[in-house]
């Protein structure tokens, strides 16, 4: 029998498959299509201290092999999450990773204090330093080494729980922001969030998205994610969680070979709810056919030319 469990620092996941933040809400809808008990964990929709209505107008545009979104962190706020969603999420029997998005540094610290409290049953805090669809916070911190370091270092003061840092690919050098996260005490980095993009309506000559720009996700960004993971794997000592257009077991294996300890499935789970079950079955078939006893043995086994 193939061992699908993976470790991300002290956190043991039943499977390398996680549902990515922003693509599964708080699990309610996906749970109607997918047995969440068998996956490694769920990353919540990005939470802010106060509720957010998100961006107005058109929020999505289709692209070749992908999509743009500019939801703008619509969420009920951290307090409503704790009251209305977390108890239900716990019933899924899988790890809960809370994605935390701040307007400013204090927002991140305050939420780390609330969600990082040992009495709050969340397993991991994932710092969203990468959402491209809000005017302040998030990607503005994630775009620089100083910003990443400042937030992660500060958050570490408030919690002993594992802190993962979801980084933006919209930077010149991903290894620099990833190293800043590691040096500040991050438990893992999540690579990558969406790439900033645009779609244009040729009749109106306006951007399709009312926010003008949005985040590109889906298989279109997979090669970029793989390259960034492989780059970071050469310099980091902390685990990497891969994310970016994963659609199949083959994709999962590629991400693990590149250096990912676990992966997040996002856009493709939106398109095909129930996809994790298929990927899990295919991973088992692959491992059995290749005589791989522990899937985690694949991590970081890239043979460079």
């Amino acid at each position, binding site marked *: 029998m193939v061992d699908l469990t993976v470790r991300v620092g002290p956190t043991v996941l039943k499977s390398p498959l996680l549902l990515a933040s*922003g*693509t*599964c*809400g708080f699990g*309610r*809808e*996906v749970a*109607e*299509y*997918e*047995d969440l008990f068998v996956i490694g964990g769920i990353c919540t*929709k990005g939470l802010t201290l106060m509720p957010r*209505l*998100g961006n*107005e107008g*058109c*929020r*999505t*545009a*289709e*692209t*070749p*092999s*992908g*999509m743009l*979104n500019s*939801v703008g962190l*619509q969420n009920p706020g951290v307090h409503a999450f704790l009251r209305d969603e977390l108890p239900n999420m716990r019933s899924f029997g899988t790890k809960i990773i809370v994605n935390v998005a701040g307007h400013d540094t204090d927002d991140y610290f305050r939420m780390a204090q609330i969600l990082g409290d040992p009495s709050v049953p969340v397993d991991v805090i994932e710092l969203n330093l990468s959402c491209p669809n809000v005017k302040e916070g998030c990607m503005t911190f994630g775009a620089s080494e100083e910003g990443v370091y400042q937030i992660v270092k500060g958050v570490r003061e408030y919690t002993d729980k594992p802190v993962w840092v979801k980084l933006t690919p919209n930077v010149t050098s991903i290894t620099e922001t990833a190293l800043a996260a590691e040096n500040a005490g991050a438990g893992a980095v999540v690579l990558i969030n969406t790439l900033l993009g645009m779609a244009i309506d040729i009749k109106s000559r306006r951007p399709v998205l009312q926010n003008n720009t949005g985040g590109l996700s*889906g298989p279109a960004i997979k090669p970029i994610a793989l390259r960034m993971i492989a780059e970071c794997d050469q310099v980091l000592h902390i685990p990497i969680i891969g994310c970016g257009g994963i659609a199949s077991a083959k994709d999962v294996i590629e991400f693990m070979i590149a250096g990912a300890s676990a992966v997040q499935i996002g856009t493709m*789970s*939106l*398109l*095909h*709810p*129930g996809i994790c079950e298929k990927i899990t079955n295919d991973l088992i078939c692959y491992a059995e056919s290749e005589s791989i006893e522990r899937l985690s043995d694949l991590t970081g086994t890239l043979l460079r030319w």
Partner: protein
Amino acid sequence: MKKEYRIPLLSNVAVGSATHVLTFRSKEIAAAANPGQFVNVSSDLFLKRPFGVLDTDPEAGTFSIGVRRIGAGTGYICDAVPGTFFEVLGPLGNGFVFDQTKRIIAIGGGTGIFPLRFALKRARELGIPSLSLNGFRSKSDIILLSSFEEVADQVRISTDAGDFGTKGNVVNLLSELTKEEMKDAILMTVGPEIMMKNVAKWADGAGLFCQVSLEKRMACGIGACLVCVCKVKAEAEGEPFRHVRCCKEGPVFAASEVIW
């Protein structure tokens, strides 16, 4: 547990110059779909396309949708030959409410008429008297007239060009209604946003309850991604408005809730 179905197209019939009625085999969707609900259908592009259910035949295990050729995705679907397999999620969303309905006036424009055909059929099954008002650009754009006559007690048509039925739009048809026809009526409307907005305004003035089926660009269709939100009135104090999911809380809303 719900699942994404992979189902075959059984027939594809052109019902207008750029409009097709497609029938698929799925006993699950045929058995579960209610008027106003939709299915999310794959094409050869990245995202699925949402379509209101036009008809179901639970005994035969089939359901139909109407598709207008708008872009490449709908073009692929309109050109599909029987036997082509599609990935389909559904039925999705909340449809029309028929509780305590004494009379239905269904108001449709363009492709909005498709889900109303299903609503009128359900009204007939429930013994609810119905009146169907459909608006088109011109006589040559009129589709499914006999199909509506099969299920509605009365069908009236308006054309912008005035070459068939009442000249003007569906609001002109509404303003021609008699007091008796309006008495205790519930309105159901699907069509272009400007049309639904005007119907909702008319219903408000006439003191009639109106259900509108909104349309937004969607991705998942199941309520997970939050890209298809609609603006509706606030519930809590201090809240300017709410963003609710067209695919999950809708697509059918009480018109009085909608912020146009």
